[in-house]
């Protein structure tokens, strides 16, 4: 038999002014099942809470309704009080007499009448509440970070510094990512490699970090605290345990004409290679596509030359399974392929290059040793035209967004070029300059005012190569209001920042959403910028949106804080507002499985004692369920119910309103 206590709060004058609280308490006392009904000036105060606690103890209450402010305000307060008095906190409900009644109605009798209704509804609901207990989920205190760029490195280092284990998975043979390819960084012009390489080494040598380079995530199963990840370790053909990184193999490799991905295809590499001299780990891999030993069975020079016998042509991909409690996605970005712009030569003009190619030209370790020389003939260009917003903010190309970093790196490029070629002319076409950031506007001003970059506001309509090899750049100067035509030797396009190709697959594996552009979706754009819809999966860096290095690093550290927070306790406690499947009723039409935004509803095989599958039903993984109840309403059999908002409870609420 239900024994319900009702507690009406005056909230000072806030409720009491328009609602006759004593009358509400009197009316409530008459409701079936209500054994105590009291009103008090401030129910949330210590004496108020004590009043509830005493009533719970003395009256052996089975349920409590506190009629006060919005539950968003004090539900936790009152539930905690109930728990302290020995009542399961989920047997307490609140009626919102303040925000939904006394504050929005002036007529005292009408407001009082409505208040009685609100209490009646909650009394009927709470009678049908059942005790719920926080869901405990085991947490495997190891994190996996996907992507070994600056975002991944930073997240891994911070998690490792917090004393937790990290597996850092990187697709390419070395960590470092795009940042390792940059010449100098805005707005300080410090050398990118100088600041990055120590962090790379630190990541490799940290006892808490396991590096898995040349590896890709193949499958992700499980849920927060308990992910099971399958990682494909691609065949390296070089035994990293034996290799000392002496470099004899790639010096002697006869295949030396392979365009280097690291050098944005401007430099060359051998078939057995490390992407760049400071690579971490500094151990080569064999590019199976270009190695003649692997393709034709001829050569074998590297095996002969290797003093440690580390070369193994029989090496195979290996699948490794790891258990992790949290996943950080830091897969970064790539540049849009500007060959889709017919007016900029459709990718056919070799001296029309992208930002990364310019970075490699400007980098001291690049293919031209830091001299700006154009790809076609190796000449130093006397006029370089930089074009911003190439693809970005162009809805026709499907990218309505701003790539955020181009204004800054273009200013940097123009500056670097002017520093290296003193009599050279740097012309920048821009739509507008977006230099929001610490020291950023000063930086672009410096490019214009001190370093003599010529900024032209307008779009370029066409680039073509004249017979004498000059690139003719025609566009509009919209400030001067006239067309311009520039004879350039090199054109640098600030191509849009786009997510990594195939990133959708990884997102789907993890249950993370992505926007129309393919950038991963955060759980909330303002308040949960590093979490995702998938509990336990976090985002760092440009895989979420175009970002510069400081923002990327900040987000990576935020991820680490989230991961460390998650790992702080051995078990994770979650709100028990989750869906449950009545397996007797479920006919496995899979509508709920299709519906769940979190992948929490899953197939479950029911077996007999011999282990034969008798039936397959849906099951809710309480580690993943967030309690929205969409599956409940989708189920035609009503085989699913939602704790805290059961059909029975809602039915009672509706019936009370008759």
């Amino acid at each position, binding site marked *: 038999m239900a024994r319900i206590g009702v507690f009406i709060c005056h909230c000072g004058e806030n409720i009491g002014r328009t609602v006759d609280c004593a009358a509400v308490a009197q009316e409530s006392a008459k409701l079936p099942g209500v054994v105590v009904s009291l009103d008090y000036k401030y129910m949330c105060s210590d004496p108020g809470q004590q009043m509830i606690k005493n009533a719970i103890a003395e009256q052996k209450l089975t349920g409590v309704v506190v009629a006060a402010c919005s539950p968003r305000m004090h539900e936790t307060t009152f539930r905690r009080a109930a728990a302290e008095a020995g009542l399961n906190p989920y047997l307490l409900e609140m009626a919102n007499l303040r925000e939904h009644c006394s504050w929005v109605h002036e007529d005292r009798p009408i407001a009082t009448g409505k208040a009685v209704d609100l209490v009646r509804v909650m009394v009927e609901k709470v009678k049908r509440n059942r005790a719920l207990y926080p869901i405990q989920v085991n947490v495997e205190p190891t994190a996996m970070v996907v992507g070994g760029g600056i975002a991944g490195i930073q997240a891994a280092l911070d998690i490792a510094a917090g004393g937790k284990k990290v597996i850092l998975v990187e697709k390419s043979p070395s960590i470092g990512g795009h940042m390792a390819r940059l010449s100098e960084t805005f707005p300080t012009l410090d050398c990118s490699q100088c600041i990055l390489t120590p962090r790379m080494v630190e990541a490799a040598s940290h006892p808490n970090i396991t590096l898995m380079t040349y590896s890709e995530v193949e499958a992700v199963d499980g849920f927060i605290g308990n992910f099971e990840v399958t990682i494909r370790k691609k065949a390296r053909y070089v035994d990293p345990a034996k290799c000392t990184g002496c470099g004899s193999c790639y010096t002697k490799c006869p295949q030396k004409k392979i365009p280097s991905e690291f050098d944005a295809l401007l430099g060359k590499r051998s078939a057995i290679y490390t992407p760049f001299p400071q690579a971490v780990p500094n151990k080569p891999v064999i590019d199976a596509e270009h190695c003649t030993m692997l393709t034709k069975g001829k050569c074998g020079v590297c095996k002969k030359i290797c003093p440690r016998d580390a070369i193994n042509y029989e090496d195979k991909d290996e699948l490794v399974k790891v258990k992790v409690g949290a996943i950080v996605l830091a897969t970064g970005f790539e540049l849009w392929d500007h060959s889709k*712009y*017919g*007016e900029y030569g*459709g990718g*056919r003009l070799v001296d029309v290059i992208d930002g990364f190619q310019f970075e490699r030209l400007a980098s001291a370790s690049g293919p031209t040793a830091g001299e700006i020389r154009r790809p076609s003939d190796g000449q130093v260009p006397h006029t370089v035209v930089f074009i911003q917003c190439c693809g970005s903010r162009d809805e026709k190309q499907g990218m309505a967004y701003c790539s955020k970093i181009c204004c800054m790196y273009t200013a940097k490029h123009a500056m670097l070029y002017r520093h290296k070629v003193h009599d050279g002319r740097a012309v920048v076409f821009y739509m507008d300059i977006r230099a929001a950031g610490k020291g950023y506007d000063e930086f672009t001003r410096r490019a214009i005012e001190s370093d003599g970059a010529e900024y032209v506001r307008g779009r370029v309509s*066409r680039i*073509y*190569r*004249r*017979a004498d090899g000059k690139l*003719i750049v025609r566009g509009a100067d919209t400030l001067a209001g006239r067309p311009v035509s520039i004879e350039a030797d090199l054109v640098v396009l600030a191509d849009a920042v786009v997510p990594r190709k195939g990133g959708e697959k990884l997102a789907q594996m993890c249950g993370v959403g992505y926007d129309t552009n393919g950038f991963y979706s955060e759980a909330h754009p303002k308040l949960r910028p590093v979490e995702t819809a998938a509990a336990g999966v976090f985002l760092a860096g440009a895989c979420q949106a175009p970002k510069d290095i400081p923002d990327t690093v900040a987000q990576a550290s935020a991820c680490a804080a989230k991961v460390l927070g998650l790992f702080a306790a051995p078990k994770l406690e979650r709100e028990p507002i989750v869906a449950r499947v009545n397996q007797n009723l479920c006919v496995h039409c899979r509508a709920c499985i299709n519906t769940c935004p979190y992948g929490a509803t899953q197939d479950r095989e029911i077996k007999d004692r011999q282990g034969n599958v008798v039936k397959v039903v849906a099951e809710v993984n309480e580690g993943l369920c967030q309690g929205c109840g969409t599956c409940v309403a989708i189920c035609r059999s009503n085989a699913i119910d939602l704790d805290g908002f059961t059909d029975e409870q809602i039915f009672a609420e509706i019936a009370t309103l008759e």
Partner: protein
Amino acid sequence: MNSIGYYPGCSLSGGGIELDLSIRGLAQLAEVELREIDDWNCCGATAAHNLDHNLAIALPYRILALAEKQGLGEVLAPCAACFSRLKGTNVRLERSGDLKAKMQTIVDLPYSGSVKILSITEFLNRLMELGLADKLPKKLTGLKVAPYYGCLLSRGEDIVSDDAESPSAMEAALRATGAEVVDWNFATECCGGGFSMSLTDAVLDLSNAILADAKAAGADCIVTGCPMCHSNLDMRQLKIQSSGMGQYDMPVLYLSEVLGLAAGMGCDQLGLNRHFIPAMALAHRFDPPPQAAETAEAVSDQRSN
């Protein structure tokens, strides 16, 4: 036998007669009947919309209405300007019901919007699909062509289906003839267009740049689909050369002429003897002259003087 409506427009019986001749020849070869719209009028070209917007729509409207009345589902408008006006009118009518009603009052003919307008490139590509591709016995091996689209075969998002910045509607047909398409820069630049009469100097500058780039790219000829471009590049080339801007001797051929050549049609039948910049020498590389050919060349030379 397939049949397609035909709107020759003004230039195909005048300056663009080679276009008319070569198109009719190719259609016959591909066994497609061209049904000329009865009682057609001027499309308004570049002039009408400068004077009166209603007139600029009413003129093509009447042509479309007549075509619909005569049961023509598709109509070829070989002149790029005619194509642009006719198809553009279709697009505008579709967007605005008021406009359609207005035009019906002005022209006094109903039009539901059913007529589909084909450009020269769409039409020729269709002929290729309908079997013309198998009827090109001559390989124009070694012929270097610069396909020139100009504005009306590349611009107008809802009119031209090609990529405005790097159109390619002519390339496939040209490659099918065995000709080599050169990589050049001025395929969509302006030839001067409608300023042919009013601002001839501007035309000379613009057309000169096109010719210069084609020559620099090593083209033997420029291929076009627009009579206006053709006259600016072909007829005005003489003036460009005589005023010392450059010496090109660059024949300008219609796409249909190139295809006709590959199909083994005679130079005279194609109207290749009617060009200002002699095209016969080029043509003879693939269609060696009979005895009388010299006279034809002479006629052509005479015209060019």
